[in-house]
């Protein structure tokens, strides 16, 4: 029997329907191995719904509830309360949602569950567009990015969702990137030990949607952090803390120029030099805001 079939610990099994180079199986494997077997996943319509497959078999070794896009946080709240009412102990209810189901369609239930401080973990894997339906823009698509609905590049800015969730004053908010997988794992471990609403925003590169070669997934995810576009931080009970390599990035000279991240991806290939400078300026501005948050 191979390593993956020994189901003593929760795993995400190989041979699933994810695209080559898609980091979602690895992210879910990390999530399940940290959360353990007594976990219920709630997955709104997204790429993950396809990866989890049909009744002939699923790569997930824990129960999964497929939900409507807008309902995932509400369903997870109900599941958590029902399990608690049955007298169950030591279980985790996890919402695994894409950026569209988090920032656009499901934002009302997400905000509601955060406000009620439901005891669930919400993980948003952010591939920065509606990838499953064919790369349509979402409110988390970054400025200048090509999608099928923004053929000339998006004109608006990416919604700062981790900071919005921070303003809900929930016990734990964190950002993560698949390029720094141990940082992500450590944040999951920390979130598991906290009671209340926990939110992790995970940057998850998408080879077909971001228009880069499938072998560059980890490199792109690392560069997003190294250039400062995607800062790694956690907010625990209101205390803001930078983590992993982002600790050093308050000093501008330690951050790579944003071109390093943008030039790898075909979705940014039509950017003019002025737009690249505009993105660099926005990143520098964001780090000034972070500086103020760290001091607090």
């Amino acid at each position: 029997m191979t390593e993956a079939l020994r189901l003593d610990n929760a795993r995400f099994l190989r041979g699933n329907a994810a695209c080559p180079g898609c980091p979602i199986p690895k992210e879910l494997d990390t999530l399940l191995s940290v959360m353990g077997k007594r976990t219920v996943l709630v997955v709104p319509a997204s790429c993950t719904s396809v990866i989890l497959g049909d009744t002939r078999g699923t790569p997930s070794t824990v129960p999964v509830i497929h939900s409507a896009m807008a309902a995932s946080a509400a369903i997870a709240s109900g599941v958590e309360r029902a399990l608690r009412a049955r007298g169950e102990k030591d279980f985790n209810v996890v919402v695994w949602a894409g950026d569209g189901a988090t920032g656009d369609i499901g934002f009302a239930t997400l905000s509601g569950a955060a406000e009620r401080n439901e005891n669930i973990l919400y993980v948003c894997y952010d591939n920065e567009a509606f990838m499953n339906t064919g790369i349509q823009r979402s409110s988390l698509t970054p400025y200048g990015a090509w999608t099928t609905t923004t053929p000339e590049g998006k004109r608006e800015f990416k919604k700062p969702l981790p900071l919005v969730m921070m303003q809900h004053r929930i016990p734990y908010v964190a950002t993560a990137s698949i390029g720094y997988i141990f940082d992500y794992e450590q944040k999951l471990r920390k979130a598991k030990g906290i009671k209340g609403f926990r939110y992790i925003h995970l940057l998850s590169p998408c080879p077909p949607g971001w228009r880069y070669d499938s072998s560059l997934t980890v490199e792109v995810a690392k560069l997003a952090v190294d250039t400062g576009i995607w800062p790694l931080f956690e907010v625990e009970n209101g205390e803001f803390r930078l983590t992993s390599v982002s600790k050093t990035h308050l000093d501008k000279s330690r951050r790579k120029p944003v071109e390093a991240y943008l030039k790898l991806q075909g979705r940014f290939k039509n950017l003019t030099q002025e737009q690249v400078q505009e993105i660099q300026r926005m990143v520098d501005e964001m780090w000034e805001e972070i500086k103020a948050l760290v001091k607090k």
Partner: protein
Amino acid sequence: MIEVPEYSVPLARPKLGSAGKTGFWRTSRPVIDYQKCTKCRLCVIYCVENTIDLMPDMYPRIDYDYCKGCGVCSNVCPHEAITMEPEVK
């Protein structure tokens, strides 16, 4: 938590290869040069499909039944011990 009896309801069960033998998707095959491998395990950590197993001697081994040939392992390998070879010559 909730035990569902086997084969009573049409529920999906955990299955290796839920999308079939995904190794057929591969256009290029990662090949490990064990002379160059330093057992750093970065390929095991970063294989996005979880298809690289760690052997008892701490060397990685690729499960070609399910490897989709994305090339992430070859990209993260710091010693260039994994090369991508075309499946069709």
